[in-house]
């Protein structure tokens, strides 16, 4: 194993002026550095989006609160949603893709390093453009600055008539720009996975994370572009006098909804599929068994990818589609739960009969399993259309999707941080701080998002800056807000762990977890060229084969 960690001595060890280091990072085309840039960028917006969430929760702590004005509140929930989805989760996931995919397939870099850099800076610029709206968005007097039309910008609310000024344009342009960046990265991931695998790494021998990023990349190509198209149409309406969504001219507000959700639903699968990938890498290693049902996991993911393109109008059950359309989307939505459930069973099957180590990455994955189960089931409940006529547009939905994104995706991502931080930095994150982070976050998460289902069932709609007393929502909202603050503390513990471990963490070595995929065969951090000699593999777990020559996976293929 160590024969692959030949580093050429004497290179890059001399002191450099900080300006030169900065220049290197800004002009880098190295997938590892771009991966780190993406991740750090995403973490920054995690904090910003989190502050926006806290502002929302303070305002909603009790009825008729006036911590912020309705205008500010409406900007907060718009920016919170837009930020977290487009400028937190997506960059972090693209960052892990960038860092890990070439290493896992035995390549030296992504297929198109310069496109990689270009895509990153395009996405980064998009985020900065969105936040510049706080300064530059004002058009007509009183028209507001940051966008306040919700992260869906439903027509005709996003039209010039109802959103004068430029706030909606900042929303549109920033997402258009970062959307093109996402497409560039997706193309890069697909080309890398299909064209840059090391010898012997047939598609059936790729780590599952690579498979899942391949599917995610394909979905980005098909799903992000409808949003780009709709946003171009919105710009035509707003600036060229077009009528795409102009109901006064016969245009359709429902058409915007269709276009948006044709993007919006696959988008959440774009977000969750890499999280599935993290689980599929971490759970086997900490159960000391290979993933249960590798081919089924691949098939289920591809199935989820295709099915997720057919469910979008379950976000529109209250809009007044006819009963046949409603029925169609009900059955497709329930159907997509089947391959998703199969994946959960396969992860349990992986742990079954294993020797589970409760290190922090595994803790987060176990949290995911419990929470994603609940999230999926509340999704199935809402797929039952008449039930959704009560639950839709209420805090039940808000609780459901935060359960998926925070309880599921964010937990899996935390697991990924703890698992791969040693590889990226050469140091272990503190297990003690990690456990504090985990348990504080679990307590805060459940306090907030378990309870949050209840106001929805008691009639509380979403996106309201205040509510009437006497509806029974006050105490529940207070508890939800307290949980949010506990989560904030947990995030601070996490950030502190990231920083302090960089300087004081235990040295990791190349393979601290006794894992089986190629990234663990290089040094931590890897040299710029990743591998001194290009690896050749004969199974899905090349390091297992090396460590267990008497019982290699390759003999079971």
């Amino acid at each position, binding site marked *: 194993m160590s024969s692959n960690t030949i580093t050429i001595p004497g290179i890059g060890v001399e002191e450099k002026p900080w300006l030169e280091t900065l220049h290197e990072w800004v002009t880098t085309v190295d997938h590892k550095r771009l991966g780190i840039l993406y991740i750090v960028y995403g973490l920054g917006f995690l904090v910003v989006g989190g502050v926006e969430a806290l502002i929302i929760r303070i305002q909603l702590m009790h009825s008729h609160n006036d911590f912020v*004005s309705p205008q500010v509140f*409406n900007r907060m929930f718009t920016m919170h949603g837009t930020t977290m989805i487009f400028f937190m989760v997506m960059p972090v996931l693209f960052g892990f893709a960038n860092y890990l995919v070439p290493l896992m397939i035995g390549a030296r870099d992504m297929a198109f390093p310069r496109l990689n850099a270009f895509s990153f800076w395009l996405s980064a610029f998009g985020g900065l453009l969105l936040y510049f709206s706080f300064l530059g968005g004002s058009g007509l007097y009183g028209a507001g600055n940051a966008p306040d039309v919700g992260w869906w910008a439903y027509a005709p609310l996003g039209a010039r008539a109802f959103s004068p000024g430029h706030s909606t344009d900042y929303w549109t342009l920033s997402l258009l720009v970062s959307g093109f960046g996402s497409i560039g990265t997706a193309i890069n991931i697909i080309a890398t996975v299909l064209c840059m695998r090391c010898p012997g790494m047939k598609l059936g021998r790729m780590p599952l994370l690579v498979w899942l990023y391949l599917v995610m990349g394909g979905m980005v190509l098909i799903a992000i572009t409808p949003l780009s198209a709709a946003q171009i149409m919105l710009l035509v309406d707003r600036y060229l006098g077009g009528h795409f969504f102009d109901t006064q001219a016969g245009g359709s507000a429902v058409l915007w909804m269709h276009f948006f959700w044709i993007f919006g639903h696959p988008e959440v699968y774009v977000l969750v599929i890499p999280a599935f990938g993290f689980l599929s890498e971490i759970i086997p290693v900490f159960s000391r068994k*290979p993933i249960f049902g590798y081919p089924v996991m691949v098939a289920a993911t591809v199935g989820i990818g295709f099915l997720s393109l057919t469910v979008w109008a379950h976000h529109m059950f209250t809009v007044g589609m006819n009963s046949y359309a409603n029925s169609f989307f009900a059955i497709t939505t329930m159907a997509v739960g089947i391959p998703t459930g199969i994946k959960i069973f396969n992860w349990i099957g992986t742990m079954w009969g294993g020797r589970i180590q409760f290190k922090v990455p595994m803790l987060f994955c176990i949290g995911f399993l419990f929470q994603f189960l609940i999230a999926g*089931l509340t999704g199935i409940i809402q797929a039952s*259309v008449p039930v959704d006529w009560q639950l839709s547009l209420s805090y039940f939905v808000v609780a459901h999707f935060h359960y998926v994104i925070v309880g599921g995706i964010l937990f899996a991502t935390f697991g990924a941080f703890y698992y791969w931080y040693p590889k990226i930095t050469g140091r272990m994150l503190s297990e003690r701080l990690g456990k504090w982070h985990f348990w504080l976050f679990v307590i805060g998460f459940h306090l907030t998002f378990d309870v949050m289902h209840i106001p929805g069932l008691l009639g509380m709609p979403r996106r309201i800056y205040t509510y009437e007393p006497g509806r029974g929502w006050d105490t529940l909202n207070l508890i939800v807000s307290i949980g949010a603050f506990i989560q904030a503390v947990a995030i601070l513990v996490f950030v502190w762990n990231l920083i302090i471990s960089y300087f004081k963490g235990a040295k990791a070595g190349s393979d601290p977890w006794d894992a089986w995929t190629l990234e663990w065969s290089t040094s931590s951090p890897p040299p710029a060229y990743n591998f001194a000699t290009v690896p050749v593999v004969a199974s899905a777990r090349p390091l297992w084969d090396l460590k267990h020559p008497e019982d290699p996976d390759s003999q079971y293929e």
Partner: protein
Amino acid sequence: MQGVKNTIRTAVHLFAFLFCRMTTAAAVDPTGTNVFAPQSTPARSILHLSTFVLTITGLIFVVVFTLLVYSISKFRATSTNANSEPAQVYGSTQIELAWTIIPVLIVVVLFMATARVLHAMQDAPEPANALEVTVIGHQFWWEYRYPKLGVVTANELHIPVSDAAHPTPTFLQLLSADTDHSFWIPELAGKTDLVPNHPNRMWMDPERTGVFLGQCAQYCGTQHAKMLLRVSVDSPEDFADWVREQRQPAVADERVAAGRRVFETTSCINCHAINGTVANGRFGPDLTHLMSRTTIAAGAALNTPENLHLWIQNPDAIKHGSLMPAMQLSKSDLDELVEYLETLQ
């Protein structure tokens, strides 16, 4: 590990307790917006369906939860077994088939139950004696028109109670004058959106008289939060009385003629209508029978003289960002105007 199991057990019990607490609270019904306290056929059908769906998903949860808890407690690494690797199992076709087929069957059952209720509710034929109301959503108030009765009003909907033996349901046609809204009275029905250029239809047949609350559920702009709904379900006699009063033109009390003049000579008439005067503006609520309403500003404030003063002079104090302009009236004009409005029974 025992600690983890105990924590999980406690959490599950707490959740179950909260759930039961909330559903029993429905019986007492202090809130009026509880989906577990249906007072109309649509809301009741939904509750029955959700009980069925919840039971199935609850069972799935219990099974998978148990498997999860079992696997993380039974298969942990211990000091004795941690030195060797366990049997490396790659998969099992039979197990995969089993846990594919069973979910497919569950989905089929769930879908059939869903489709049945969905069609029954959505494609329900409108009986001849149904009351028809056209609801028009505005930023940030509700307009109600009773086309067959010649009534136009705002914000507080009156409908007759429906006797189960001889049902008199209310069918709402839902339109919008500007952006998207959603009509949600949880105890009477599921919500349906009001989308411009896309008429929608919903119905309800309330089982008892009383006041039912709700609010707009589709984000429609700055004051979405205060676009409240108030439905008064009346006995047939009370409803007939209400209709008769609403059809009258506005009270013309000579004692408040000064206030009426203020109204008719200020820009009020650009937005508001008062039947029997020159005012027939449609942008804002119809004020002909303003005093028959309990609240103003779509429920944002009680209908009192003080609030009326405040609403006309400084609407931002009550509903910041609503489309009612501050009218900049002199104190005497304002007093006279409110005195006039107070007569509009």
